[in-house]
Every structure is written in structure tokens, then in C-alpha cells.
């Protein structure tokens, strides 16, 4: 039973992807995460708007974003964000420090304690992960929250 809500969230089984940005771990359904690319070189620094870095490619330019541990956009591109994925329904390529794919696993969500919740929060549940936790999120909520909250210095 969940100690914070007295309501036991149901376990979920399926394929998931763990994405790490700094100390932030996110757990998304695998179908929301595109193929992983390796970023050969960091973007040149030009920004479409604060926190959205332009990358020139032969296929055409695209916007890259890197998240802080609070899920906001960073205005300086961290050197360790070398893994890039698309997220379903978002127009941005997202850059991560670490990615783990979990195939056919069961996860036990825990509800966010009531005192921490806000209606606009992009995460309402989390799972235990190694010695820490990962927030359950969907791609659209991630993108909306990050873009709406602007860019910040690491």
C-alpha cells in the first residue's frame, strides 16, 4: 500500500526507457521514445530561444534541448549530454547523459506525497530505481513543462 495516499497504485508491466539528465531520472513508456543517436559534437551555441540549441545537419537544422535536474531547460549545453532521442509529439531532440531500456518489466509506481503535489506538475508518480528514484512521465508533459518554464543556468 502506498504510504502517502493509502491508495495502492497498480503495478505496470511493459517496456520502458530510463532517461537521465544530471540527477534527474525519468521513466517513459518505450513507445514514446525514439531511436538513440550519439551526439558527435555539442551544438555551436546558437539558440533558437533560450535553452533550445540549433544543430546544423545535412538533413536540415534541428533544435536540441538539455534538461536540468528540475526538468527545466539549461541555457548552457552540458558536455555529458551525448545521447539524443526524439520524444513522441515534441518538436525537439532531447539530450541525455544516460539511457537504459527496460524490456518487459513490472514497475510499482508510488504516488507523490500530497504536500508536494501541484496541479501543473509534470510528474505525479515515481518508482524506486537502484538507490534512488525515477519520475514517471510522458513526453508531452515533459516538453510542455520544460518549455513553459524557460531556461536556467545549471
Amino acid at each position: 500500500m502506498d504510504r502517502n495516499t493509502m491508495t495502492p497504485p497498480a503495478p505496470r508491466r511493459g517496456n520502458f526507457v530510463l532517461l537521465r539528465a544530471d540527477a534527474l531520472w525519468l521513466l517513459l513508456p518505450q513507445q514514446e521514445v525514439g531511436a538513440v543517436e550519439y551526439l558527435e559534437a555539442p551544438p555551436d551555441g546558437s539558440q533558437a530561444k533560450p535553452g533550445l540549441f540549433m544543430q546544423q545537419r545535412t538533413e536540415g537544422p534541428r533544435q536540441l534541448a538539455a534538461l536540468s535536474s528540475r526538468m527545466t531547460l539549461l541555457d548552457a549545453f552540458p558536455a555529458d549530454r551525448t545521447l539524443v532521442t526524439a520524444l513522441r509529439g515534441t518538436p525537439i531532440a532531447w539530450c541525455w547523459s544516460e539511457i537504459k531500456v527496460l524490456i518487459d518489466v513490472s514497475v510499482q509506481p508510488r504516488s507523490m506525497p500530497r504536500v508536494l503535489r501541484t496541479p501543473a506538475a509534470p510528474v505525479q508518480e515515481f518508482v524506486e530505481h537502484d538507490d534512488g528514484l525515477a519520475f514517471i512521465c510522458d513526453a508531452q508533459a515533459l516538453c510542455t513543462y520544460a518549455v513553459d518554464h524557460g531556461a536556467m543556468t545549471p
Partner: protein
Amino acid sequence: MNTVVAGRCTLSATALLADYARDRTVAFAPHATLELIERPVITPVPGAAYFAHGLLCWQARFVPVIDLHTLLRAHADTALRPPRYALVLAWQRAAGAPLEHGAIGLAAPPHRLEVRADLAACPLPNDSDLWPLIANSCLRDGERVIPIIDTARLFDSDHG
């Protein structure tokens, strides 16, 4: 704590005082205070309430950590700094219900106060609208006004 002295019963009690800001103190019932953690490792929660430090792994569970001063001021600093200490507190939704847990961030360890007969009850401070929602009562110790926090109301509410 009840103390029996030479055949007569003298009631006395202690409270645990926590300085949540400079010259601002609250009290907790000792049975509600479980552990003081120095330099707690707290995971920030994206989009959490403005007064939230985040989640602390404590005894194989994750407990919310909040900043009482920010809650009472009803506005956030640009970014809350990690607290030096986390005081883990217990609460219950109802009598007989399982214990649940939360924590407040502190800059200094709490200290004990013997609740003497000369400590008078007094009205809650009027510097925050939230006092009646999170405090049961209030004591005056000299010039110091000390609200007594109800941990269930503190942690089982939407203060945002």
C-alpha cells in the same frame, strides 16, 4: 512525560523546538519527531510545491521534505538551497491509522523545551494566514511566541 514527586503528581512535558528562520521557532510533540539527518540527500521533484525541497530516502521509503519558512511566507525564493538538516516527523491520518512520515529542512538542530507551568498559551502569530491550518496552539516563552505544529495537518494538506 509525567513525573511523580514524593507521592504527588506533577505534570510536566517537553516539546522539541525547531528554528525555521532567524528568531522564528515552532514546537513539535516529541513523539512526532523521529530522526535528525545531517546533510540529507534530497531529490528535487519537478513542478513540486514552491516550498518543497523534494523527496528524501529514509528507512527504505521516500518522504517529502519541505521548507516551513517558505510555506509560511507563501512565496518561493528563486531556488531553495538544500537544508543542512532534515527533521523527520511522523503523523497519522486518524487515530489507529498507520504512521506516515514527512520532514522539514532546518539550518540548525532542534532543541528541547520543558513546558513549564509559567508558559502561557497565546494567540497564533498573525504573520501568515497558514498558522491556523498547521498549528494546534501556541505558547509564549518570554518574548518568544512558539506555535505548536500539528504534523498531520502540515503534511496531509494541499498548501499550494
